[in-house]
């Protein structure tokens, strides 16, 4: 099946929850809605499912207008952040429930439930009740129930948000395999850029109800067309440097001077925003062309194998992503290094004008 949204808007009171969304999702694809809380991920999913009707615009399935059709009549399944299972049914009965509602013959149910249980590694748990399972297994059960009816459209609304991070890692790893086994359209909402990158597929970053770009996940990440896409797609926050180009100099106030290398000399004099990923800001000099800037350390977050050093540069908040563990004292002043070849440059309308050299080659 193919799902198409045409100029879809959803207005509640005077506020647009969704504004002019155009998307075409093909069968067998994984599509990620990426954005912070309240960016419209859930609203958009509800429109796709038919739980809500758009204020204007059309929803098409295989080219046919289904805008007014209620959710019961569509071939849709949904998985939520909370693990929603029938508490008084066994795992087997939970997975079988959508088939029973559809009056599927008994032997077919048994076969399909077994297939799902194998795919989601629930085989040994089939006779237990959901309360006896770990959070990860409960969410697997909910997912199996969604997948078993073979719905053409499966919506997953932050399905991993309530799990411990190790369980999250495990399930995230399995998802692409599970998705590939079914051939439905998957729509997956998440707030975490790293999750989007790990899952692959296509990504639609969302900002205040608008889709800012749509395409293959890694391409959207590497070539964000506008600043907001780049910001949504960066965790920790993207480092931003507002500069003014005038008479062959590029300056941020009087603090940072950016040498005009690569494509920078070709830009007309104007205000620009330079952005670069935290892993391209370093506490060690890697090349002679690196720009050195003095910064004050706000906090160092350590994830186990990497350190996120939050620094303050003349009122700008930057993050350095450093490999290994660096315990730098808070309030210490350190030198950080910027590599101009990794700069994304956005014009004053926040549209991309310069892509880093490494990305343009690729």
């Amino acid at each position, binding site marked *: 099946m193919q799902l198409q949204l045409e100029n879809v808007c959803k207005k509640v009171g005077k506020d647009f929850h969704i504004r002019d969304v155009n998307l075409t999702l093909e069968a067998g694809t994984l599509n990620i809605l990426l954005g912070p809380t309240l960016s419209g991920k859930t609203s958009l999913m509800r429109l796709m499912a038919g739980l809500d009707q758009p204020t204007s615009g059309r929803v098409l399935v295989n080219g046919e207008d289904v805008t007014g059709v209620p959710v019961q009549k569509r071939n849709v399944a949904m998985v939520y952040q909370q693990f929603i299972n029938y508490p008084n049914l066994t795992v087997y009965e939970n997975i079988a429930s959508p088939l029973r509602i559809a009056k599927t013959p008994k032997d077919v149910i048994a076969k399909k439930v077994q297939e799902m249980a194998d795919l989601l590694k629930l085989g040994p748990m089939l006779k237990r009740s959901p309360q006896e399972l770990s959070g990860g297994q409960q969410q697997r059960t909910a997912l199996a129930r969604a997948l078993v009816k073979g719905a053409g459209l499966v919506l997953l609304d932050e399905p991993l948000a309530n799990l411990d991070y190790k369980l999250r890692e495990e399930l995230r790893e399995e998802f692409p395999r599970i998705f590939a086994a079914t051939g439905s359209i998957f729509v997956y909402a998440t707030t975490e850029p790293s999750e989007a990158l790990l899952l692959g597929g296509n990504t639609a970053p969302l900002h205040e109800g608008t889709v800012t770009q749509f395409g293959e996940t890694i391409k959207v990440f590497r070539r964000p067309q506008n600043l907001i896409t780049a910001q949504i797609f960066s965790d920790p926050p993207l480092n931003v440097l507002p500069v003014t180009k005038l008479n062959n100099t590029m300056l941020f106030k009087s603090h940072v001077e950016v040498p005009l290398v690569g494509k920078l000399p070709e830009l007309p004099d104007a205000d620009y925003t330079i952005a670069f990923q935290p892993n391209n800001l370093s506490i060690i000099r890697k090349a002679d062309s690196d720009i050195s800037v003095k910064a004050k350390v706000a906090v160092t*977050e350590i994830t186990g194998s990497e350190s996120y050093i939050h620094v303050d540069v003349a009122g700008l908040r930057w993050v350095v992503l450093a490999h290994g563990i660096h315990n730098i004292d808070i309030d210490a002043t350190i030198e950080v290094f910027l590599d101009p070849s990794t700069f994304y440059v956005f014009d004053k309308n926040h549209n991309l004008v310069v892509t880093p050299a490494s990305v343009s080659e690729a």
Partner: protein
Amino acid sequence: MANITLKEIAHSYTGESENPDDFALKRLDLTWRDGGAYALLGPSGCGKTTLLNIISGLLIPTRGQILFNDQDVTRLSTEQRNIAQIFQFPVIYDTMTVFENLAFPLKNRGRSKKEIEPRVIALAQMLGLENSLHTKAQHLTADLKQKISLGRGLIRQSVNAILFDEPLTVIDPQMKWELRSQLKHLHKKFGFTMIYVTHDQTEALTFADEVVVMYEGKIVQVGTPEELFEKPAHTFVGYFIGSPGMNIVPCELQGRTALVKGQSIDLGTSYASPTSKNVKLGVRPEHLSLNPPGEEGLPVRIVKVDDIGRHKIVKVALDDAIFNVIMPEVAAMTGDMGSLVMSSDHVNIYVDENRVTGGTL
């Protein structure tokens, strides 16, 4: 303020028992220095909340003692222990203003208005609450509410320790690092002993000078973030810390070499032959690299390449042993062969899941 000592603490929810399986907390000994920042890290069900409740006085341990300095407080109530606690969900007094909330602990202790006011104002400034002092606390966002509950602990300058029970659970991801940074500043400024319970490695490692990792009711390692990363004392620590965790594969030991799936790996130092058959080799994905096939290294098949932006995670297979490799850039594709290189300084050997060093055993 006080040193906190746990002496042979063990706890079973069903009471004293001969069966070690009944104990949610197996026997543990631990000392926390006055003014330190500590974290209790572990997955759900590892006993960390039980331990926290024992420290705060909600639970009396089945066995053992807990000492503040040299005073036995095992049977003292929470109030008598003079500690503060910040909970998972912000606990605030809804009907009071921010000011009244912060002043509440002092008011209850009969302090004069003259003494309370400047202290509350100074603290509110430190916490960034000075602009909302006279609004009702109920209307604030979760992060500000959590600051209020923290403030109620900090306002009493005499507390022995401040306990945190997963305090950032309900905070927006974007706000978390700001609160972490503020917490570190406050710790530096006040010098209270702080104990932070969490299942999130980033939170524990960011906050603490020393992290206590718990697993199945036992303490498996106490160490600095560096130690937990470089030299995990238990395979669980290796797996739990780091994303992805440590690669842990079964091996055989022969003096200076480890045999993994018939391939030998030089260990740099020699190990005594182990008493158990359960021997494993652990190495971090960050300490592995991949060479083109034919070059020096273990012959591996590439199972999967994940590009997560800042680096790539390559999953390789040596026979049926799987390794994750983290590389900044990699040309190889799924299905290719490659040579896996590991440096002997970063290889850890585990016998019965516990780390052993060369020359011992």
